[in-house]
């Protein structure tokens, strides 16, 4: 007996083709928006003299956290500058910030929806599982099909890969608000919106911030992968080094990613603590 293969691949390609031909204006609009955002950010970072940017970041780090983070930011960025990866690192930062920003805009409301509605959660959770376990490379193909090569499909792939933690932890944070506080909010006649903004979200902030932190880290981890489809930045340097088997260059460029990762991680983590202290 010969059971025919289920043509899942064909179906996916048919959907892709259909979207490509019918939803083109939508993709073009998204492409324009993302492209402009990333490029504006990258241009801004690279327009200013690097030392000034380093000073600004150091001050932000000092304001958010303690002097240790500020010192690390200063030394780390100076190292990046010294190694000659400044421009590309700033391009990567622009990509990561844009992807994270989009993830927050999409993820927090979706998380709120999941927390408020069990049905929504039951639909969204398996999709998130799917998104996180499907190998990230797979997103690159449709991303390229819809947005062609460049930084935009990189951002889109990063968002798909990195948005789940924000959704999950926003949902979790709101659901973890103690039941008696929700009861109190209801007992005093709060509207659902008042309850959300005055009680649930403020109490869920540390958890939501933990999700955003993870989202930023995940989108940073997509940087190298995104460079395979033409996204600029330090990821492209790593990718080039790998293809040319140049360990030293790869290590230097990788170090720039590490510096960026640690700075972003510590900053977002301390933002939570700062928030807690109020």
């Amino acid at each position: 007996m010969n059971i025919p293969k289920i043509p899942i691949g064909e179906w996916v390609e048919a959907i892709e083709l259909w979207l490509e031909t019918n939803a083109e204006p939508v993709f073009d609009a998204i492409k324009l928006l993302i492209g402009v955002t990333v490029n504006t950010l990258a241009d801004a970072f690279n327009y200013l003299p690097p030392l000034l940017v380093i000073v600004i970041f150091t001050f932000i780090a000092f304001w958010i956290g303690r002097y240790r983070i500020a010192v690390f930011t200063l030394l780390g960025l100076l190292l990046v500058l010294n190694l000659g990866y400044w421009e590309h690192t700033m391009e990567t930062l622009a990509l990561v910030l844009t992807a994270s920003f989009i993830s927050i805009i999409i993820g927090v409301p979706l998380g709120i929806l999941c927390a408020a509605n069990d049905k929504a959660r039951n639909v969204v959770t398996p999709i998130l599982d799917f998104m996180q376990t499907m190998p990230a490379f797979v997103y690159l193909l449709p991303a390229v099909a819809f947005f062609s090569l460049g930084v935009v499909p990189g951002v889109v792939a990063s968002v798909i890969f990195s948005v789940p933690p924000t959704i999950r932890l926003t949902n979790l944070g709101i659901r973890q608000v103690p039941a008696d506080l929700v009861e109190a909010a209801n007992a005093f006649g709060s509207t659902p919106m008042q309850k959300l903004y005055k009680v649930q979200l403020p109490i869920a902030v540390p958890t939501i911030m933990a999700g955003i932190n993870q989202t930023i880290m995940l989108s940073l981890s997509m940087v190298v992968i995104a460079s395979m489809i033409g996204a600029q930045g330090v990821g492209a340097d790593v990718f080039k080094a790998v293809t040319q088997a140049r360990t030293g260059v790869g290590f230097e460029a990788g170090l720039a990613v590490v510096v960026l990762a640690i700075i972003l991680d510590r900053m977002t983590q301390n933002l939570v603590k700062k928030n807690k202290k109020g």
Partner: protein
Amino acid sequence: MAIIEVKALTKVFGNDPKRAFPLLDKGWSKERIARETKLTVGVNRVSLSIEAGEIFVIMGLSGSGKSTLVRLFNRLIEPTAGQVLINGQDIVQLNPEQLRQVRRKTMSMVFQKFALFPHRTVIENVEYGLEVQGVAKEERRSKAKQTIELVGLAGLEDSRPDQLSGGMQQRVGLARGLANDPQILLMDEAFSALDPLIRKDMQDELLELQASMKKTIIFITHDLDEALRIGDRIALMKDGVVVQIGTPEEILTNPANAYVERFVEDVDLSKVLTASHVMIRAETITLDRGPRVALQLMRDRGISNIYVVDKARQLIGVVTAEDAAAAIKSGQTVEQILIRDTPTVSPDVLLGELFDVVSSAKIPVAVIDNRQRLVGIIIRGAVLAALTGNSGEEVGEPPR
């Protein structure tokens, strides 16, 4: 006038809860319904009415449905059937917006574990109810500040709840409940999480506040002593049913069934009964009578002391039979033989506190009200009789 009128209020948890109704009508027990239908009967056809200005205590052990019942009043839990009429308006029929208005203006709530918002300061917690109503910031701040002073937390407005002790936190909870000046205050085991001494202080303070506020307070507790101390009336619940409703005295002296009897049998009566429960009527004369009249009255009644009062029944003193007999011989007036430093207590002194006074007094202790009027006397034996459980009939009904 009844401010809250509850009619056949029922809450059944589970899928398709109305299935339970015919079974309840058949008289199935809560356990049997749970076993055979997986439905949980929380509150079973409760009807009661609560008067404006009273402290109505709903008491029962855990699982008796008391916390569910109080949440049906403001629909934190949706009733399965029945009515809750507040000022004649059926809460069960309100749409969400109307319900919000009732929760904002008419009824507020104090929670067992305080349920203070940890991200808000004391004053921000207290003003929450006003804030969601859209009251302007200055107005709600000043109202919140007044309420904080009322509960004795002045100066702590900008503290965070977690910086306060349990007792203080619940004062914040109470202030939050009072800030929007509701007619009805629902207190769900409000003092149960506090340690005993603080709890007693809070009870006293609540009674003090209530004396000036005259709110209708619905107070949930599992603690009988607490119920007896603060309740004007008590509803006793078991398995979702109200077993008995009555004044603390009625519950104690006339338990409706074996369950209530068992519930109250361990009560320390010395902490519940007051002077007014054990006092008996005093024989009195006025000052213008002579010693002969006094002695005659004492002989007739078989007593050895008679209390002297003025026209307004205010206590002046006491005359003993011995002194009266001597006065007749020596021609003295009642006024001359009057003993003026009579031991006195007020009617609401607890029996536990009466022991000392009664045992050290040579004559029965006079009970006087706050206008110095003699309302009764306490003889030593009556206190003991009351404590051994023979209160009521044998000691004489307290004059009401």
